[in-house]
């Protein structure tokens, strides 16, 4: 593949410039823009309705508020902020979510490395068993675990949810990290071992840095799932320490037992969505080409 490349290169470059505004590109942009609109539409509906009164919501579609008279106001938002201890709930959510995101990442990284780059009998079977644990419905674990927490005496403290979320999040975390770590090039590790590096060094100096995009993705999802979780926190904290409950519980309580007040869930959702989106943006920058050094060559 030598002489032909030299001749074809200029043509290829010319072709790629011409491709910039070809029908293919226009179609690409069109498809993406339509997709984005379709995806945003439901959320925009919620956004517009969160700015309207409940009487308006019941009588006309949200799109009617886009034209005058709009009847838009921030009343619902101020109601949400003033009626609940949202600030306290927000802090609790942070207390619960941050450790519950960090711990599983570390535990899973060690396990994923062992599954990818260490050989031992039963490796595949054990790995598949771990992944299979994804199907365990969380509700089936509540009673034995809460009983154990109660007997140990930590029921109601944040430790319970940190431990529980770690346990619940590990199957997916290990699954994801092992997939990315396993795709790293064997040569890199082999040359490191030849140079006398221990597995620990190889892990911290090679495997971990090259798996950053996967770790970033995992961090985003674990953060998100724990942030939006209601039931786990309610079960482990609610009975004895309501002051530790996260924002999700306070938001759910905007609605009374008859369902009245459900219009407040819209504004509350936007308030609650802010931080996960910030986390997403912050970690997005790790999804860049070249982190793995273009390692995957197939």
């Amino acid at each position, binding site marked *: 593949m030598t002489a032909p490349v030299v001749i074809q290169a200029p043509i290829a470059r010319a072709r790629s410039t011409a491709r910039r505004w070809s029908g293919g590109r226009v179609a690409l942009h069109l498809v993406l823009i339509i997709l984005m609109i379709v995806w945003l539409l439901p959320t925009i509906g919620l956004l517009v309705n969160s700015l309207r009164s409940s*009487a308006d919501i*019941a009588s006309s579609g949200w799109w009617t508020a886009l034209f005058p008279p709009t009847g838009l106001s921030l009343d619902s938002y101020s109601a949400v902020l003033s*009626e609940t201890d949202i600030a306290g709930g927000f802090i609790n959510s942070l207390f619960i979510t941050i450790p519950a995101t960090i711990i599983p990442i570390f535990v899973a990284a060690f396990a994923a490395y062992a599954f990818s780059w260490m050989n031992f009998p039963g490796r595949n079977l054990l790995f598949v068993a771990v992944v299979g644990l994804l199907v365990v419905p969380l*509700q089936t674990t*509540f*009673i*034995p675990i*809460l*009983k154990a*927490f*109660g*007997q140990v*005496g*930590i*029921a*109601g*403290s*944040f*430790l319970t949810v*940190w431990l529980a979320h770690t346990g619940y999040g590990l199957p997916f975390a290990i699954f994801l990290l092992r997939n990315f770590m396993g795709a790293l090039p064997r040569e890199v590790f082999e040359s490191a071992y030849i140079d006398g590096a*221990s597995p620990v*060094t190889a892990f911290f100096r090679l495997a971990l840095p090259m798996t950053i995009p996967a770790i970033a993705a995992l961090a985003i999802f674990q953060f998100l799932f724990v942030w939006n979780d209601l*039931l786990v926190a*309610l*079960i482990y904290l*609610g*009975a*004895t*320490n*309501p*002051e*530790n*409950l996260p924002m999700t*519980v306070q938001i*759910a*309580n*905007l*609605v*009374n*037992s*008859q*369902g*009245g*007040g*459900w219009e*407040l869930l819209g504004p509350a959702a936007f308030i609650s969505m802010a931080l996960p989106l910030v986390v997403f943006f912050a970690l997005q920058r790790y999804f860049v080409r070249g982190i793995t050094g273009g390692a995957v060559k197939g």
Partner: protein
Amino acid sequence: MEERKSGWRRALAIAGSTALVLAACSSPSTTGGKSVTVIGTWGGDEQKAFLAMVAPWEASTGNKVKYTGTRDINTVLTTGVASGVLPDLAGLPGPGQMTEFAKSGALKPLDAVLDVATYKAETAPALVALGTVDSKLSGVFIKAAVKGLIWYSPKLHDYSAAPPKTWDDLKTQAAANKGNAAAIWCLRLGSGAASGWPGTDWIEDLVLRQAGPDVYNSWWSGKTKWSDPAIKTAFSTYLTDVVANIKDTTEAVDPTKDFSGGGDPLFTNPPGCELFHQASFITGLGAFKGKAAGTDYNFFPFPDVNTQFTGAVEGAGDLFGMFHDTDEAKSLMKYLVTAPAQDIWVKAGGALSANKNATSYPDDISKRSAALLANAKSFVFDASDLMPKAMNDAFWTAMLKVTKDPTSLDATLADLDKTQATAYAAP
């Protein structure tokens, strides 16, 4: 080099982990005084009302009430009872669950906690009986509601002077006074995960007044079958007299249309309907909330169907129980059933008290509802709340089915019989 680095990290790790374990095991301290943990289904304005109700107790005892509201109360309490981690007080999902919890020993009897004599004097006997398990008082009613009120807008026609006394009377009058309303009845069964329950209230009211309290009681306790002529008649009446006279059955059973907005058509111009059957707590929901009691809306009680069974009233309420008999919990429980405490919630509106002496109702309408409750000749509790949960769930689903498709009545009743055969075989 490697050794020294890992030694460093190891020391830091040990220090960090010690701090971690110490800090994590410490629970947050309360600011002076003890605390009582309470779990209930109340959220939103109900939560505010409850917190207002306990505020005077907190002030006088220096204790703190820590309240958790959740609509997943069944999951939380079932898990709690099975695992032994429970709040001090809890709003119980219903008399059935209360009985289970009491029998398992989780609920503490309240005979030594309250002044039982006063409680019995101030509360309707039926409610006292419902809270009693094995002749021990295990649950008390903190809030109550009357079911089966027929709401109307006086602007269309004012029934206050001469409300219909019998069902036939109601049918004639309703047809005569329909005016420009789109339909006679408003009906909405949607209620999220509990969709169908407004329909069950209809059937219960009809069974009570067509077949009487005895049949009503043997029905919810599983002794009378669903396909029994008495019960079937109630369904048929519902289908021919009500469902046939609503504007749109699709809307009535639509899951996205919440029952709380079901009465909104009463207030539109022209009105969407003339009459709306709902419980006393509807006044705090939907369009009712912004309207003036008496001028914009009013009610008359469900008329008799069979005059033999006149004076029967169906009600419901929120049961409360105690899981830990600490001194603070006992003190709070004792306070919650008193009239002054109940008055606080009652004043906020939208709720009735189980305590006869709580009389600070904000308007005439609530006063009349409370009077209905207090003076009922025979008071029965909401039947679906008394049935085992599996039966209750099937009942809700059945209401959606028959309302959408009245021809499926016999098949649906047969299905309900099947469920009834197994649902009552409780341990």
